[in-house]
């Protein structure tokens, strides 16, 4: 059996810079800021007080009142993104339910539900725990609920690799299609867990920006000398992946092609990247090799670029390792500079960004790169969006636990 080509025919996005794909894309191109002070709960005793938050997201616009109560917010967001992606692709899921699967990665799951139920447990006792606790917070529920809603009965699970979860879900779905286990996959990532516990725990791990609580719009500053940690974010993105044959069979023009997925583990440290970004470089190299291209074919890198001192330094080194002297000529931008770090959603949002960049031959910039860092001396598109004529985009995702994933998208040529 010939391995099928896999194309993207739909994208749905819900992010702190826009509810919806084109709104998000416009926001990113305009270098809009999605990071605001957290006001939904008391943060006065937490070191980090800002987050990339959705503005104007109303779950009831998508989901019935009864179901909204029985789903955690990470599922609400995933449903909104998936509905948009399915509509964008014009995919009639129920007409070929068994040929369509669903993989929506989530790194954390329903943290807000869990915290609320902890309070019930502590204050009122175990007999008052909700029967919906378990089916609301487990991290596979985005995959489950999107299937239930769309009718997709093919391969279905959630991949978890901390901050690379969304990328691995897209990569795993790509492999499902290549091995012939489905004709189309609803694939992406979601996380929405801006809660007291999550903020406190990430702050305790010293991963978050704490120095700009009074200046949220400048808190996420990947590759900038004065970066001091990442900003927690929330959101989701879903892609519709399908075999080229399937897309052509139903007369859909692909938006872009997904050509390779490379994955590696650092096997080094739970929270720190391996020395000089060795693992990240290996994932990029693997993806480039599997795409059957050479490094010089890559026209754009959507970086993991979290805005932590170590990540951005080591990711820069890993890019230099892979691209050599040409590294300086490749534009690199970090979506997280505008939406924050959306954890399991990050890899999917950034995959969506690569698809739209190839479609429009235009890339967004890195916001807040104001003070150059001698350790980060590549072209991060600091001045804002630019037109770019290019064929291949690579999206990097690196997660706690030493997970590294690279996806390569290609401008679609029949």
């Amino acid at each position: 059996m010939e391995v099928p080509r896999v194309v993207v025919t739909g994208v749905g996005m819900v992010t702190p810079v826009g509810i919806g794909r084109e709104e998000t894309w416009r926001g990113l191109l305009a270098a809009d800021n999605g990071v605001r002070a957290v006001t939904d709960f008391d943060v006065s005793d937490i070191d980090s007080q800002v987050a990339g938050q959705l503005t104007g997201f109303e779950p009831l616009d998508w989901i019935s009142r009864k179901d909204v109560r029985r789903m955690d917010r990470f599922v609400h967001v995933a449903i909104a993104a998936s509905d948009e992606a399915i509509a964008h692709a014009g995919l009639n899921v129920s007409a070929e339910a068994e040929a369509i699967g669903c993989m929506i990665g989530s790194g954390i799951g329903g943290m807000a539900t869990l915290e609320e139920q902890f309070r019930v447990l502590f204050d009122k006792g175990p007999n008052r725990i909700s029967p919906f606790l378990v089916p609301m917070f487990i991290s596979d529920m985005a995959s489950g609920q999107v299937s239930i809603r769309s009718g997709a009965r093919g391969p279905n699970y959630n991949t978890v690799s901390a901050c690379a979860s969304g990328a691995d879900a897209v990569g795993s779905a790509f492999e499902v299609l290549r091995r012939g286990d489905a004709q189309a996959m609803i694939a992406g990532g979601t996380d929405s867990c801006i809660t007291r516990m999550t903020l406190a725990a990430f702050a305790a791990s010293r991963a978050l920006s704490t120095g700009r609580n009074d200046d949220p719009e400048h808190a996420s500053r990947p590759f900038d000398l004065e970066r001091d940690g990442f900003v927690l974010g929330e959101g989701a993105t879903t892609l519709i992946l399908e075999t080229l044959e399937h897309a052509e069979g139903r007369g859909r023009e692909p938006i872009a092609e997904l050509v390779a997925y490379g994955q590696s583990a650092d096997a080094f440290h739970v929270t720190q990247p391996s020395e000089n970004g060795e693992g990240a470089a290996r994932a990029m190299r693997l993806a480039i090799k599997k795409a059957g291209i050479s490094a010089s074919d890559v026209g754009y890198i959507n970086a993991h670029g979290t805005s932590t001192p170590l990540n951005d330094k080591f990711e820069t080194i890993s890019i230099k390792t892979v691209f050599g002297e040409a590294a300086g000529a490749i534009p690199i931008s970090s979506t997280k500079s505008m939406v924050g770090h959306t954890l399991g959603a990050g890899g999917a949002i950034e995959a969506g960004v690569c698809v739209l960049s190839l479609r429009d031959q235009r890339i967004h910039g890195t916001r807040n790169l104001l003070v150059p860092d001698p350790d980060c001396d590549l072209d991060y598109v600091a001045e804002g969006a630019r037109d770019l004529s290019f064929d291949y985009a690579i999206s990097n995702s690196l997660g706690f636990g030493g997970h590294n994933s690279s996806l390569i998208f290609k401008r679609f040529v029949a």
Partner: protein
Amino acid sequence: MSREVVVTGLGLVSPVGNNVPDAWDALVAGRSGIGRITRFDASGYEQPWGGEVKDFDPSEHVDAKLRRRIDISTVFAIAAAQEAVADAALEVNAEAPGAVGVMMGTGIGGAHLLVEQQRILDEKGPRRVSPFLISHMLPDTATGLVAIALGARGPNFAVTAACATGGAAVGEAAETIARGDAEVMIAGGFEAPLQPIYYAGFMAMKALAAHEDPTQAVRPFDRDRNGFILGEGAGMLILESREHAEARGARIHARWVAAATSNDALDMVAAAEDGRGIAEAMRRALARGELSPEQISYINAHGTGTPMNDRVETRAIRDVFREHADRLPVSSTKSMHGHLMGGAGALEAVITILTCKHQIVPPTINYTTPDPDCDLDYVPTVAREVPVEYAMSTSIGLGGHNSVLVFGRWEG
């Protein structure tokens, strides 16, 4: 091009034994591992039964510093992985960094850690929350730690699919080898759900079994079944390309033949009454393995012991296997070890592999009163010698997830 994949190592930590030989002896003897919960104060419950791992010493598996940072479920995963790696006599070669990967599943992740830290947050404030919480409570913490311990730098992530998690993780790992992205994968699942909030959550769902005698509480396929019992532990496999295993002269337990997942796309809790979702996964697995239904010699069923699961699963087996279903032994080892949630599919994969190796199938204990809705051969009470060529393991989860694995006897 799809490469052949074999199983060269097994490891487990379970309510019926903390290593493969002990657990297998107990399962073949039909011994229950269900008893009174001691992992938390469950004295407020009338029948606080659980499948606990017993006489387990974490210090034999992780050092004291790491133990303080990680959840007990992660210790189970590490211990089972250690047994599997030793069983396979696997040495990770630093010169082939991507050759060995790790893929494990868990339904929940670090539940015990989280509840402990929530109390600290509430009582002492956010600045006292552990810096190790986030990085050590995630479902993928164990895959990262096992990779670090072994230097395994290949494909690495966790899979979650509720109670179908273990099967999905093992299947994804096997496919990773089959497509050539790794030579060896350490794969499995683990869970430690005996924790007040989850116990209460499942109680609220009215999913847990009630019976005066804990060892008789889980009664899969029996007319008087009334729920499942939560169990804890881990099951791990070393999956390897046949080529790699033979080149290093590894002993092979069984062949991995196929994996499939599907979703009912119906309801977040209830399975489709006609069993179409799990039937679809069984059919996909048979197709992936290029097998006819008649070639399957044994099914290790999901068989939770809930009224609905066992009825639906029986229907699906009848639907897929037709007349062969009358000649097909089907047993639920959950009758002995309880429901390990994200660990279940992996533990049961290990058991399914052992049926291929030993040509014996463990029984369904507590099956005493037939249910007209469940009319298959459930291997009641006593283990049976069966010529097992191909054996199937099924898993069905909340959220409509289904996973199926098929293993085959190794003619070595």
